[in-house]
């Protein structure tokens, strides 16, 4: 309302000025002004319409919640406008005279168009009508003032709405050229022409205060939440979001639209510190300057002006300020930690540590001697108890210095980190051997004793069918025994008084042929056996060269290995005795008639004295004898064929060599490490070898592994005479020794190359008597059963089951 009042007053005031000026261009101005004003009005109306529409649109767009804001803004803008406007009006007042009414009109019409609503038109028209009538009446009333003088009270002139200066006089302030700030503390800002106060227009604060006084809860929208049915109120955060949205800001809290840039590539350019330029020459030339200085120092040292090192000072006594701490002075139990070294715990003193121990703790003579004889490190006690009557008689501790020194050494050499000592029983690291009970069956007891030989039995063999046992001994006879009952079924005296060294059966069950070596001869014998079909076969095949007879029995012989490379078959006569140098005889039983490959056995029965004919291979089907070595290194001890390949092994005194028969080359040299090899045997798989030696060792060789033995077994007290693998698939091997015992071992070989052979000692078989330092001379296995037979120097053979 004050605004309205204000505007009225201004209109009233400004009335006078157009009156004074309208002489010049009233008409034109009026015409023009009307046109302009009309056009302005139209524009303004159109503008206002547009604005209204805009405002409505804004309303619709921004929703109902915006109304407050709108109101606030619309209020704010005039408030700000107001103050500036007033000043502008005042300025305009000053310039209006200069600029002319056009400018003032333009400025003022705008204000009036913007500020005054249409509601003011009707009173204006009334005022106009009144003005028309009032023109005739005096414009004042005459009253008396306080002094009684007439006072003219002028009626307030209502300016016509369309008058040119209706607005301009409203800004007329009569306070003159004084700063407006003088009125800051007053509600008015000056006085008009009538001396009335021009009230200060309402400011924003006042509107704010008014609006603030109207209590609208925060977030009030006037809407109803359809989900809850309660009035929908916005939270502070939502309002904040909305506010930000309206300001085209990112609604998210804490979002920084301008983060600091991370420079991935610095703008600095760095220069390579190293240079590829060649070193300057002066760096390689000895510096004369330095040499001069060095010479100076040297001279000074020589003359004694400079001492090269300071003599050590005695500092031991002079450091009372150095503090020493006892680490374990107040030792409290602490959790275990690597860096924590607890105080060593001393055991409580025992009785024998006393200076006056009870007599039972005093050592007697034997204990004293034992203590003094043991090494100082091996003593379980470091002291020997001594008896003293009184404490004053106890002498000084003689080892004090030594003990301190050792303690210092301990500290000096002690590792800083406590080492966790592994306390492992070394026995537990050994691989677990299966107990022998799990490895049954193996021979455990003697079941049959074969008696009959006079003198030692040197060799024995079980025939491939497993029913018969052939033995040969010092009495020059071959004997055939029924294995099951121990009955001798056949015997023959071979060659005079020469001992039978080796007997071996022909492999395979289709022929029943026994080979025996006696003296320098090899005899091939077909013992009588009631197997008519087999006999017929054998006779057909072997009849050509075995059709010999000797005495009444079908004894055949073949003799081989003359001197040099000669081989000679005996004519069909009685076994010939050959004269000459004693030689070792070999014989091979070859199952295939025409091929050399693979012969089943080569056997060697005497330690040779000749070198070239130490080993001979006899192909029986072709009557052919080959001497594979021109010169053999060392004394040949034994020879064996590989069970499946055309390879044969020759043992000399120290080594075992394997030769390929087909390619005629040396394959491998095994060095068992024994001093004197007595015998060896090849595992039926062909990859393992056992070696017995006269120096009491039994050695297991893995041919794939190494040339050194995989395992050395030293269980015998005397020389080992014979070793033998079980050939029928059982993982057993046995050795025979001069101490009259056999030992049975479990030797399991698996096909897996990653796994080593398992060797378990199983059983010691005793029973043979030792005669003239000779015990068991030979051992052989049953081809299928876990039985073994042994030939003893006492003239008996034994079957172990």
């Amino acid at each position, binding site marked *: 309302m004050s605004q309205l009042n204000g505007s009225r007053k201004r209109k009233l005031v400004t009335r006078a000025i157009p009156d004074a000026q309208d002489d010049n261009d009233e008409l034109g101005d009026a015409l023009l002004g009307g046109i302009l004003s009309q056009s302005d009005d139209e524009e303004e109306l159109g503008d206002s319409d547009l604005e209204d529409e805009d405002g409505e649109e804004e309303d619709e767009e921004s929703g109902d919640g915006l109304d407050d804001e709108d109101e606030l803004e619309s209020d704010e803008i005039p408030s700000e406008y107001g103050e500036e406007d007033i000043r502008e009006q005042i300025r305009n007042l000053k310039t209006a005279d200069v600029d002319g009414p056009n400018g003032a009109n333009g400025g003022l019409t705008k204000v009036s168009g913007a500020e005054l609503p249409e509601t003011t038109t009707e009173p204006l028209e009334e005022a106009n009508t009144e003005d028309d009538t009032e023109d005739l009446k005096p414009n004042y009333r005459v009253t008396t003032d306080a002094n009684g003088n007439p006072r003219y009270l002028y009626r307030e002139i209502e300016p016509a709405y369309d008058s040119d200066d209706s607005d301009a006089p409203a800004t007329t302030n009569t306070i003159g050229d004084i700063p407006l700030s003088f009125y800051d503390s007053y509600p008015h800002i000056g006085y008009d022409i009538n001396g009335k106060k021009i009230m200060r227009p309402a400011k924003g604060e006042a509107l704010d205060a008014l609006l603030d006084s109207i209590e609208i809860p925060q977030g009030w929208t006037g809407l109803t939440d359809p989900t809850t049915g309660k009035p929908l109120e916005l939270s502070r955060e939502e309002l904040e979001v909305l506010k930000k949205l309206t300001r085209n800001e990112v609604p998210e809290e804490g979002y920084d639209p301008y983060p600091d840039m991370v420079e991935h590539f610095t703008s600095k350019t760095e220069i390579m510190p190293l240079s590829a330029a060649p070193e300057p020459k002066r760096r390689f030339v000895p510096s004369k300057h330095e040499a001069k200085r060095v010479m100076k120092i040297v001279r000074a040292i020589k003359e004694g002006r400079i001492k090269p090192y300071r003599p050590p000072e005695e500092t031991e006594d002079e450091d009372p300020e150095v503090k020493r701490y006892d680490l374990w002075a107040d030792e409290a139990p602490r959790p275990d930690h690597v860096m924590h070294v607890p105080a060593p715990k001393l055991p409580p003193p025992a009785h024998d540590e006393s200076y006056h121990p009870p007599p039972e703790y005093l050592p007697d003579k034997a204990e004293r001697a034992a203590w003094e004889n043991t090494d100082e490190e091996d003593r379980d006690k470091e002291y020997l108890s001594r008896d003293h009557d009184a404490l004053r008689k106890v002498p000084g501790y003689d080892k004090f210095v030594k003990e301190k020194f050792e303690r210092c050494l301990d500290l000096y050499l002690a590792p800083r980190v406590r080492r966790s000592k592994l306390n492992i029983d070394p026995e537990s690291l050994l691989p677990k051997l299966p107990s022998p009970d799990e490895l049954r069956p193996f021979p455990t007891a003697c079941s049959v004793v074969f008696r009959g030989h006079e003198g030692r039995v040197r060799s024995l063999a079980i025939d491939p069918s*497993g029913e018969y046992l052939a033995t040969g001994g010092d009495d020059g006879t071959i004997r055939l025994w029924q294995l*099951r009952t121990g009955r001798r079924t056949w015997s023959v005296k071979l060659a005079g008084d020469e001992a039978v060294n080796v007997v071996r059966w022909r492999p395979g069950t289709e022929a029943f042929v026994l080979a025996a070596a006696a003296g320098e001869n090899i005899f091939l014998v077909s013992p009588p056996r*009631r*197997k*008519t079909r087999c006999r017929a076969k054998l006779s057909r095949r072997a009849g050509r060269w075995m059709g010999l007879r000797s005495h009444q029995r079908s004894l055949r012989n073949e003799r081989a290995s003359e001197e040099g490379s000669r081989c000679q078959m005996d004519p069909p006569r009685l076994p010939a005795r050959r004269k000459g140098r004693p030689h070792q005889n070999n014989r091979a039983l070859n199952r295939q008639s025409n091929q050399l490959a693979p012969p089943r056995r080569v056997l060697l029965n005497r330690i040779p004295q000749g070198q070239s004919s130490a080993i001979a291979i006899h192909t029986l089907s072709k009557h052919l004898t080959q001497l594979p070595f021109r010169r053999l290194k060392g004394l040949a001890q034994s020879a064996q064929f590989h069970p499946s390949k055309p390879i044969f092994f020759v043992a000399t005194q120290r080594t075992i060599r394997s030769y390929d028969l087909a390619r005629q080359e040396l394959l491998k040299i095994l060095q068992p490490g024994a001093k004197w090899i007595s015998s060896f045997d090849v595992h039926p798989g062909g990859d393992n070898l056992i070696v017995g030696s006269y120096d009491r060792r039994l050695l297991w060789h893995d041919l794939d592994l190494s040339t050194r033995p995989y395992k050395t077994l030293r269980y015998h007290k005397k020389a080992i005479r014979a070793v033998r693998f079980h050939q029928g698939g059982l993982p057993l091997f046995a050795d025979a020794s001069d101490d009259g015992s056999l030992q049975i071992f479990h030797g399991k070989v698996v096909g897996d190359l990653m796994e080593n052979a398992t060797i378990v000692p199983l059983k010691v078989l005793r029973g043979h008597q030792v005669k003239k330092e000779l015990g068991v001379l030979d051992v052989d296995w049953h081809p299928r059963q876990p039985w073994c037979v042994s030939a003893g120097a006492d003239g008996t053979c034994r079957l172990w089951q």
Partner: protein
Amino acid sequence: MSNPASAGDQAKVRIQLTTRHADLGLPQDTGPLLVSTSLRRIQLSSLVNNILSTPRPVPFEFLINGQFLRTSIDDFLTKNGISAETTLTVEYVRALIPPTYVASFEHDDWVSSVDVLSASSAAAGWANADIPAGQEKILSASFDGYLHMWDTSGQLVATSSPTSHGQHPIQSAKFLSPTKLVSAGDDCCVRIWNYSSPTSTDNPSAPASITPSLELYGHHGAINTISVHAPTSRILSASSDHTLGLWSTQKSSAPAAPSDLLPENSPSLTSSNKRRKISQPSPTPPRRGPLSLLTGHTQQVSSAVFAPTDSSVAYSASWDHSLKTWDLPTGTCVDTRTTAHPLYSLLALSGITLLAAGTSARHITLIDPRTSARSIAALTLRGHSNAVVALAQEPGSWYGLVSGSYDGSCRVWDIRSVRPGGAEIGGGQVGESVYRIGRESLRGKREPVGGRGLGCLGLRGIGRSGF
């Protein structure tokens, strides 16, 4: 303590008597008896005789918990930790009188096999022959290739005539009937002999003779054991060529002999046979072949027996650890039982469906051959110290057993006397021998004679005499 009689009067125990003898059952169900613990076997035996009121006193043995009562009941209870307040189940069995040495039958060579013709023997039963007491015959086979017939007084009655191909060790000999014998040995041939006893012929003064009547060829290896069944005239042989032979004892029903196995056709022996033929004019007996050869074993067959109840079923034991059941008409292997050790001897116990097999591991295994049996070894009899090579059953008893071993002893077993075996021998049940019969003389042949004075225990044993 001071007075044992009064102590015995005070201590009493309740016993429940049972038996498995059908003819000696208790007259009515006598409840538990209250007897003094000081009683021994003799008092208990007289007590049972009193209850049974037998006309002649029968000696009894008493089994308590599978153990024979050898001491007083008191000691037995103390030893086994049994409370005297429990009721003891006491089984009484006919006492086995310990065998006594009667006679020695001297041979020139090792004796391989023995058979007895007596009233209780199978051969006499098949022939319905009545063998009076004192007329029993003993047949022995020797390694020298001859059969010998003895009477009970130790007199040599007859010796077999030499065969046409030399003498080979005989491994087994049996009575087929009182006048027919069967033998087999290392010459791969089963021979049937006629035995003409002097009493059976019209000329009493003529000496008894054993002459070959039939030779059966077919095996390639030595024959270890033969077994006969006279009603069906079948012979079963176990050979070391891994086969069993089934033969007929009748010439007419047997097929012809395979010609390549006959000794004349063997080329390696022709030279020696010529001379022998000249020196031996005796005609060769007819030759026949096998009805069938049963193959299946992988090693030599040590023993083969007919089933006691069904002659079409045979059992065989072999060194390959297996015991096979054969159906003879079809010649097929019905069942295979694999044990842990090579089997050396076999005996089918009549009356109970068990087979006793002697092993090379020094014990006797009782095997249930029925296919429904769960465990292979029903009972293990331990005690021998060497391989068990001969087994025989006590005549008239289902539970008596005699075994001969290479350790030079025979043992008499009662398989009712069992105790559970400990863990160290692998569980099962273990029996103990009742008697051990040592060799009577080092050079004598063993002939254990036992029983009730009438029957002899037939035992085929291998005696190793030193001749």
